[in-house]
């Protein structure tokens, strides 16, 4: 289940206006994604680590999130050095390891970790409701913001249906094994899960209609754009511009 583990807190980043956070996170990601300079990228990674430190988040949880991303990157390390054309620096049996390949893999590693860390520090420190609200204030179309919100909401619904069905299996002594009975049971489980979640999502939507929902999500807490938001935002944006200007 998606838990908003980091959304509660009282660090500088938790208090920062979500609109500022979204803009900073977006520009940071774009800049990091298109830059190929090692100096800029190393500083970007430092910024990202710094931001996580400022947000005072649980280290263990952050590492476990990074592991997920880096397990994909690990696959790149298995492939890129051997397949990327370039100067040969080492030969392993008949496989050539190219310098460019290693550089390229390193580049991707730094980029993705910086972006993920910045995302954790900036975006996961707001609740989904606030992010949705902020996106609306940034003039993202209603349909897109709702899509974002309901994807979140129904992932949770599907997950709780899964737990319910899984418990129903367990209490009748089901154990997953490598046999046809297991496959069939899981197929039923997935099918039932989708049907049930679909039904439930319809009922939730109906309940929303009954409470006067007309396609717009209003939030209870309004953002107040404070002076400190402006200052922090400007400092962050200047850092990002600095990244581009680095030699």
């Amino acid at each position, binding site marked *: 289940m998606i838990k908003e583990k980091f959304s509660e807190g009282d660090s500088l980043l938790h208090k920062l206006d979500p609109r500022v956070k979204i803009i900073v996170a977006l520009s940071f990601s774009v800049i990091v994604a298109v830059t190929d300079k090692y100096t800029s990228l190393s500083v970007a990674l430092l910024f990202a680590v710094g931001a996580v430190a400022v947000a005072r988040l649980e280290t263990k949880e952050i590492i476990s999130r990074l592991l997920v991303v880096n397990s994909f990157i690990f696959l790149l390390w298995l492939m890129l050095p051997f397949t990327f054309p370039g100067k040969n620096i080492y030969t392993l049996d008949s496989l050539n390891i190219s310098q460019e390949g290693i550089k390229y893999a390193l580049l991707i590693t730094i980029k993705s970790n910086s972006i993920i860390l910045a995302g954790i520090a900036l975006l996961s420190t707001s609740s989904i409701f606030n992010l949705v609200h902020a996106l609306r204030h940034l003039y993202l179309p209603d349909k897109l913001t709702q899509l974002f919100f309901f994807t979140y909401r129904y992932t949770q619904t599907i997950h709780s249906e899964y737990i319910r069905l899984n418990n129903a299996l367990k209490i009748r002594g089901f154990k997953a094994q490598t046999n046809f009975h297991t496959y069939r049971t899981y197929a039923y489980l997935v099918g039932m899960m989708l049907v049930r979640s679909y039904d439930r999502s319809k009922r939730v939507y109906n309940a929303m209609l*009954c409470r*006067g929902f007309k396609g717009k999500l209003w939030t209870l807490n309004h953002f107040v754009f404070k002076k400190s938001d402006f200052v922090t935002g400007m400092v962050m944006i200047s850092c990002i511009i600095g990244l581009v200007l680095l030699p």
Partner: protein
Amino acid sequence: MKERKNEAVIKITDLSFAYLSRDYIFKKFNFNFSKGERIGLVGPNGSGKTTLFHLIMGLLHPSEGKIEIFGKERKVENDFIEVRERIGLVFQDPDDQLFSPTVAEDIAFGPLNLRKNHQETKKILKETLETLGLAGFEDRITYNLSYGEKRLVSLATVWAMQPEILLLDEPTIWLDEETIEKIVQILNNHPHLSYIIISHDKKFLRETTNKTFKMINGKIEKI
């Protein structure tokens, strides 16, 4: 639109309805409900009690017949927007009703849809929580509430819209006696409220309603 006193605010005439590939639930069904009435609705499972609520709210549409609510015929989706703003339906399963992360946001959802400003909404929120004995629940996470709490919060989310008529679908099911007693008190403390309650809890209906109707075989009759 002003409706005359004692005239039916919900008027259903010759209504027919069937779910896909099933027999008719209602055929030439008639039902009237006036302001100030507090009625209980009983009947076997599958007799169409919940369906009736959904037809009133415009979540389902009849194949034939006429639904007049607040003196106006209601046919298409847009006709029901006003109905939903003035009649509150509390679903049987609170997990269908609650969708916001916190209790406060879920309760505020309705009033904000009614375009109340933030000050008004906060005031309504506070009053609603107090009325329903939920003070201090503002920041609780909705999916971490106990079942009984979820039921009360569900009622609160609809209560906050200050509906003229409440439709309650099995409000006491799976609740302990204390929580049921709480709901009885809340309803009886608001004698001007009109409502229809679907319930199989005879004691609860005796304490909260003054008339009971039974639905059976697509018909409704007073008992």
